[in-house]
């Protein structure tokens, strides 16, 4: 076993997990409080990346571009909530899945119309485009370290927001008992808008941070959306803590599985079998994990109290 490799892969898994958490936090809040399955959450991730790419071009600075993209995403989310999603809160899950599936199609084409079919890329400032030497001689891409740092910071701020502020109290109350919150005379519409805007900004943040590593392109939110759903279901829908733990687990399993599974399988099977089976099995790992967890705990790892 190569421990340094394992350590580096753990970092990679952690970085992927952090991205997943940013997406999952918004999705799980929206689900927990508004009872809305929003498939279009991946579109918000995509919009974050496109906004950041455009603003980076205008301002010639990734940092400024990113800072402008966040409020843009939040605004976009608020408008989306007001126009399209508000009517869906009282509908069945099936209706929500369908309508937001329709929104995915719409946003993909919308982006194609505005930004063209080809996709964009975001150049990183020189400082971030290289690698940094960590302990044990591990060189690690600087930008990925930034993602990890930003993600931890956001998770911490989110923790403070949810557990220490009045808004956070309402969010927690909303996640465990929606009727009660509205019965207490809280302006529930405003709370919904705030939560949705927050979720949109978090998704946008994930999108703009993923953009320089991957490319900014149409449909970029769809693959990761499914994984995000896996995360919130494993974590327990509505639970931020669950989303955080599950995101890290999924990120770790996915990355480390991809890296070590061929070797592990190679111990039991011939190299040919291991080579061909490993990619398929490593892609399946997180779904197997989810099916296992749901078979044992049908409400996920950390179901919110009272749900």
């Amino acid at each position, binding site marked *: 076993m190569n421990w340094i490799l394992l350590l580096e892969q753990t970092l990679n898994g952690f970085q992927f997990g952090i991205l997943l958490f940013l997406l999952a936090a918004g999705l799980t809040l929206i689900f927990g409080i508004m009872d809305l399955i929003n498939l279009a959450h991946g579109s918000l991730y995509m919009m974050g990346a496109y906004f950041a790419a455009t603003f980076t071009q205008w301002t010639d600075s990734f940092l400024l571009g990113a800072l402008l993209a966040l409020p843009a995403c939040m605004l976009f989310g608020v408008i989306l909530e007001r126009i*399209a999603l508000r009517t869906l809160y009282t509908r069945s899950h099936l*209706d929500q*899945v369908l309508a937001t599936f*329709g929104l995915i199609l*719409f946003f993909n084409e919308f982006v194609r119309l505005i930004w063209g079919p080809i996709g964009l890329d975001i150049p990183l400032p020189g400082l971030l485009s290289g690698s940094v030497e960590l302990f044990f001689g591990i060189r690690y891409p600087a930008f990925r370290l930034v993602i990890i740092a930003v993600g931890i910071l956001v998770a911490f701020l989110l923790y403070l927001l949810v557990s220490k502020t009045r808004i956070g109290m309402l969010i927690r109350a909303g996640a465990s008992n929606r009727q009660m919150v509205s019965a207490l005379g809280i302006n529930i519409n405003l709370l919904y808008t705030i939560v949705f805007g927050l979720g949109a900004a978090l998704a946008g943040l994930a999108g703009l941070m993923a953009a320089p590593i991957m490319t900014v392109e149409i449909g970029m939110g769809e693959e990761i959306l499914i994984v995000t759903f896996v995360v919130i279901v494993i974590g327990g829908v509505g639970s931020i803590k669950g989303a955080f733990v599950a995101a890290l687990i999924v990120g770790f399993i996915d990355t480390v599985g991809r890296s070590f599974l061929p070797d592990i399988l190679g111990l039991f099977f011939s190299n040919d079998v291991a080579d061909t089976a490993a990619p*398929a099995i490593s892609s399946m790992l997180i779904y197997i994990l989810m099916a296992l967890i749901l*078979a044992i705990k049908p409400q996920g790892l950390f179901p919110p109290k009272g749900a």
Partner: protein
Amino acid sequence: MNFSPRTSIIALLIIGLGAVPIIAAGIDEPFYTVLFSRMLILSIGAVSLNLILGFGGMVSFGHAVYLGIGSYVVGIGTFHAIEDGVQWMGNGFIHMGIAVGVSALAGLVIGAISLRTRGVYFIMITLAFSQMFYFIAVGNENYGGDDGLSLYMRSDFAGLLDLSNDNTLYYLNFVVLLASLYISHRLTNSRFGMVIRGTKSNEQRMKSIGFPVFRYRLVAFIIAGAICGLAGVLSANQTDFVSPAVMHWTRSGDLIIMTVLGGLGTLFGPVIGAVAFLFLEELLSGFTEYWQLIFGPMLVLVVIFARGGIDGMLVGLDRWWNRLNIINKEGDL
């Protein structure tokens, strides 16, 4: 007989579907036989999904798995029939039998685990299973992996049917569709169907009456899977090609859209939905490259405003027609 507008339109649709190859041959456009053939196959898939989604309220987001299973049975079978000369593996009856059997088995496994959960967890776990099957197909290098498998022959029905003729295949699809409609009709109007419908509106009550709800749901889940597996067999023959894409999660989404678009929990709704879906796709994509820009919001509007789908609109049409008739009759008086 009651010839309300709804009955007439549905009857016209079914008769029209039956006449497609003749009309297509008449205007020398065999392409339309292929297009409508796809509509029939997806109709079968949608009819089967409707059994659990429409009547039973089980939102399965992984129904395309069975399309994949059926397709791969044909793909793998004909592959060995051609490559290794194993005659029986190209036999269509065997394909259908195995596809139904394996789909039912998959339905049993998926259902037994998934049906323990409710709501969004059920949606997600069915999705997870479909992703697993998807990746199994992707990883199966012997049968093309991600690239898929081209079929060099169609299922062989021992001289009884020659599927290499597109019209023969079309009528096979048509017959299977009629059969699945018949099964759907018989099932939903049986005692079994009543229980399934009962669990949709009030599961607790059905339980307290003493029905083993879980087992009833599981059986429905298995039957739906088996019928859809049959659609998979037809689909592979139609496209002469099998790839993991047939069971991608967006395919499952398409099936749900078709069912809802046509009208949930009605006998002919899924057929109307599948035909309308593919027709719109063909029409809009010919009209503009950005057809999804129109299709997406249309879907949202259908969900928000037309809750019964197209069939629901037809029911509305019937009501208006009846009112008109009553007014006319009153006029007569």
